[in-house]
């Protein structure tokens, strides 16, 4: 049996014989007498928390089947993983929200004030939120660009298209050569 200082309670050692797992949970409901009388701490079976123990030291601890202990170990493992995942997601969400907030704050509104003076001491000022609108437009254009021309879109160049047409047409001719090397290269919409 191995002791471990894993406070989270995840079993790190799995013994197939009598007592299967070692937990460092505080030994609840163990009779004081048992603790005091046995120098070597007897490992308590998972299932037997809270169950009355026999006063006799000769009796073996309660039989726990392999299946049951395996199931419980897996369950606790799953629980622990779930907790870890949930925590990670919560952190991610928090980070994302913080990032969004920073982005919003970062966008500078070019303040173009239109001041209208009304009767008395009232003025009306309107701010034009042009920068935000154009950044949204850019996001939309980028989406369109990436869906049609981005990775996975399987595109070729105009040069190749025209050359293939030359080679497969009824009148076969040479591949298209461009005077201007810049022609026929990938270009955006």
């Amino acid at each position: 049996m191995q002791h471990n200082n894993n406070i989270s309670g995840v079993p790190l050692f799995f013994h197939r014989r009598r007592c299967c797992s070692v937990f460092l949970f505080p030994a609840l409901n163990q009779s004081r007498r048992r603790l005091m009388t046995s120098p070597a701490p007897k490992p308590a079976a998972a299932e037997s928390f809270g169950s009355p123990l026999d006063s006799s030291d000769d009796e073996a601890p309660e039989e726990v089947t392999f299946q049951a202990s395996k199931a419980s170990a897996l369950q606790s493992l799953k629980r622990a993983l779930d907790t870890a995942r949930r925590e990670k997601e919560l952190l991610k969400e928090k980070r994302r929200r913080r990032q969004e907030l920073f982005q919003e704050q970062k966008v500078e509104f070019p303040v173009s004030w239109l001041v209208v003076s009304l009767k008395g001491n009232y003025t009306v000022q309107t701010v034009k939120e042009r920068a935000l609108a154009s950044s949204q437009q850019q996001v939309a254009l980028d989406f369109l660009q990436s869906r049609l021309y981005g990775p996975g879109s399987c595109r070729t160049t105009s040069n190749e298209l025209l050359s293939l047409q030359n080679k497969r047409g009824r009148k076969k001719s040479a591949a298209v050569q461009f005077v201007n090397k810049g022609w026929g290269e990938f270009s955006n919409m």
Partner: protein
Amino acid sequence: MGEFKVHRVRFFDYMPSAIRAMAFNSRTERLALSRADGALEVFNFADSYFQEKVIPGQDGRAVEALCWVRGRLFSAGLNGEITEYDLENLRPKYTMEAYGGPVWTICSNSQGTHLAIGCEDGTVKIFEVLEETIRFQRNLDRQKGRIISLSWHPSGALIAAGMMDMIKVFNAESGHATHRLLVERGVGASKSREVVVWSVAFLSDHTIISGDSAGKVQVWDGVTGTLVRTHLVTKWDVLALSVSRDESSLLAGTSEGTVVQFQFISSTVDQHDKEWVRTRTFKNHTHDVRALAHTDTAVVSGGMDTQLVVRPLLEKVEKNTQESALRKIAFPHVMLAPCMVNGCRISDTNAKLLFFYIICHLTCLCLFCTTCANVSVSGDDHICCSALSPCGGWLAYSTISSVRLYRLQYNGSNISITKVAKLPKVLRSAHQLCFSSDSSKLFASTTHSSVIIIALSQSECKYLHTLRPKSGTRQPVHLMSASEDGKWLATANSDCEIHVYSLHKLKLHCTVPVYSSCPTAMAIHPTTSNLVMVHADQQIFEYSLVQKEYTEWSRKLQKQGLHHLWLARDTPITHLTFNPRNPAHIIMHDTYMFCIIDQNLPLPDQKTLFYNQMTLRSLPEPERTSHSHSFKICKTFQHLLCVSLLEDHSLVVVERPLLDIASQLPAPVRQKKFAT
């Protein structure tokens, strides 16, 4: 006939813009289409597909969708605005902020009372269509993803919205989503990417048809919210859908450049079990098809390869006629666009000035000295029209907001351009600009087909007069021609009206009898003062301005009829000019040929060999005259933007080969072909 020295100009980098969206109005038979640079064009399908109106683009106006509501045209774009257009003055009427972020789609109900727009923020916004404007009514329930496409059910009670990974059906009354149809993602690598439902169509029997980025066209039952059938049409995206008016046929446009047709037919004779069956595939484009329209008789498609293709459906039209021919419209029809050539004497040199404009830059090129001057247009608006004076000293252009005038000075080694500061306030914007032959006046056409005359001089530019037609028309002028002797000015508008004004009396001289097809080119003969007009249906007329009647030659031509091969041409004549050395010559051109009509020669009859230039060349000299007819056609130079005759009897031919345009288009899809 004679020989001409030909200057071939192929360095003009004219690049048309990709077609982004289109909408067909079946009542007026007009097709509206929008381009990537924000320009809008209206084609009259009843008049040989003539491009009768062009509204220039604007920086930042990215039109994603178009929609007709009765005769009114609306657009929505990624700048988050809805725009209504004034088609009589060729400008936006007003724009309205949608406050939903970029707008992806706009769609009107069949009753024409409401507009629905799909926004980036996940809302579907409903606007009420009022007399002079639109008014925001309400939002439907906001969704988590962007709304890419919309379609109203013909009853107006339900709206289908294509989004990311799903289609939602909304109740237009309550605003709640009643059904959620989950769209399957692609296979393999695309499984990790969301599938975009680029287009939806809601039919009257509650069938919903969707086209998505995984290349599927899916048929759904809108009542139960279940998938009926999936058709995998392409490996790439299905970008556009269009349903015919009778809902019996559906078109799907793909990134491959194909348009796939589905028809609602039954596989058995008894017609009880109709279903959507894939029938034809049209491959008329090399690049993505992003816009589609299904008219009663044809498939209209457009996309990244910038050409508008009209493919008549052979079961709807008479075979082997002009009607059934495939049409590809590659160049603009009216020379609002590219270039003008002037052969002019500038100072003492016999320099020839070549002048182009591309959207927001004007370029003057001196042909033989290879110097050039550029004018860049400031502001967001693009150029509507421009003109260069015959003397080469004045340059003018107009946007929808202003007119600018420049002085050009050529001093041996370079051209300098100086702006004329003060222009008469009455000159705010022009649809067409034209200088008088002595370069002393500028003619600018404005609203209701009127023409403003500005007197030009070294010191100042003064407003002289406004010429108005008597017909009460509200349409804009698209053609304007001043005579060389300074006596006449002819204007033509999209109502097919041609008005001729006397410049000496400064009033309307006559109106040419209205012909049913719109004029595409016209010019006034320098010596005979005959007005020659060519129309969209390829008819040619010659009208004597002095006699106020059609000329003898014109009547003869009408009686004989034009040769069927002339009438079968599918691009309009865009420019007309005369030969100073031979008054009987009329020079005209379309995209694929230029033609010299010799009025002294006999007209061809239907049985004559029409394209006879090669034949004539092979005949001995004395026999040629007996075999000649008046139409001399040359197809050597293509694709033509402008053909002009200079003083020294040399021709300037401005070509823009379609191959050069194709080489600079964005990336097409990579298709694996056998043995490549």
